[in-house]
């Protein structure tokens, strides 16, 4: 493998990882020694540092990771604040409803109610700041508990959670949320 290709693969690995990548892991994947990996990483870091680039490779928590150039943080904030055109999907909304009425609640409990995997909706809701992790539940595996945030209240124009609308659809008998949502904690 040529030098440029190895460097390219390292760049791709650092970019694609959801957590900081350790040189040792890269070395294992490429079948080259760790020292060489570190040298190539230093080289990449140096290259990104030049010319006011928008992104750079940072060393964090014993690994390497891409991040935006902190000089440009204000512009990025502007983008994040820009209103999203995409409304919440029905799936995300259902997940949010369960969290709102049953908080704090674990993923497994939400999935039990919705009957589908909710990883994707949880991510969307976390990303939009409508929910947050709120400690862990006692018991096996100590699963993460989710709850709504202040942004959630703001988004729906509520003062506090007690103002959540009572959901009891009289057109459908026997569907009071309280009974449907009454799963075991």
């Amino acid at each position, binding site marked *: 493998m040529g030098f440029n290709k190895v460097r390219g693969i390292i760049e*791709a690995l650092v970019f694609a990882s*959801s957590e900081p990548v350790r040189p040792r892991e890269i070395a294992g994947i490429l079948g080259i020694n760790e020292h060489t990996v570190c040298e190539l990483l230093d080289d990449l870091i140096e290259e990104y540092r030049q010319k006011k680039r928008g992104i750079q490779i940072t060393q964090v928590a014993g690994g390497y990771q891409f991040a935006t150039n902190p000089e440009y943080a204000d512009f990025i904030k502007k983008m994040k604040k820009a209103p999203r055109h995409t409304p919440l999907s029905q799936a995300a909304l259902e997940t949010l409803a369960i969290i709102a009425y049953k908080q704090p609640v674990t993923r497994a409990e939400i999935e039990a109610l919705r009957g589908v995997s909710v*990883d*994707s909706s949880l991510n969307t809701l976390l*990303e939009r700041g409508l929910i947050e992790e709120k400690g862990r539940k006692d018991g096996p595996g100590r699963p993460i508990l989710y709850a709504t945030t202040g942004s959630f209240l703001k988004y729906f124009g509520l003062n506090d959670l007690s103002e959540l609308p009572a959901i009891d659809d009289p057109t459908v008998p026997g569907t009071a949320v309280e009974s449907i949502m009454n799963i075991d904690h």
Partner: protein
Amino acid sequence: MLLKKRPGFLSRFRHGFRRNGQRAEQPEYKVKLDIFEGPLDLLLHLIERAEIDIYNIPIAYITEEYLAYLRTIELLDLYYAGDFLVMASTLMQIKARMLLPRPPETLVESEENEEEDPRRELVERLLEYKKVKEAAAALRAQEEQWSRYYYRSGGTFPDLEEEKPDDPVGGDLSLWDLIQAFRSLLESLTPRLELEGMPVEEESIQDRMDEIMQRLSRKPQLYFSTLFSGLTTKKSMITCFLAILELIRMHRIRVRQDRLFGDIEIIRGEEDDGGLQ
């Protein structure tokens, strides 16, 4: 989400196998609808396998084949049987209409108003469905190509989340082939299965899944026939088959067949590669 089952309808189509109460013993287990593509897919499979002209389907033959699959599906107690039953009755209606002798008047009538082939509507539906499959295949190719692009993690791009595996039937073999293989096994073992009723050790689908994975950790592949050869009751065979379906769904195994009518081979799936290193 799951299609409601209508047990009353099922018994009408049951000929060979007697229900042996596995439904009551495994009430919590349901194979997800998503694994199967439905009656039109099964019909297309049967037509392609028999190399039949889609415009001239031998309806009696196809109906027989279809019902044979249906009996196996029913035996496995899968929850989408309703869709398959509707098609079964459609097929039998067409078959009946094809058997009706044409009254002499229609010969005269047909000059101005041509007698319609009872199969016409079905053929149209099959052709339409064929196009859907082609569209899906085109998207699959596109999906494969784009799965090589990794976007930054932490986004909402559905690809990036570590979701539980969806339900693709991994492997190069259609699920219909698998059910066919299971059916033949059951049929060939019927005499032995008469021993049913003798007390046997209870075995859950999970136990079976564990066992299959354990055997696969020692050997690169397992054969369908060997896996089933030690089983002595219909119930244990069904449990074993459901375990295979579940492992396929979880991407932990793949099934393939080297040649037509060859033994079906079970190999480890992508999700289980980690265990090798």
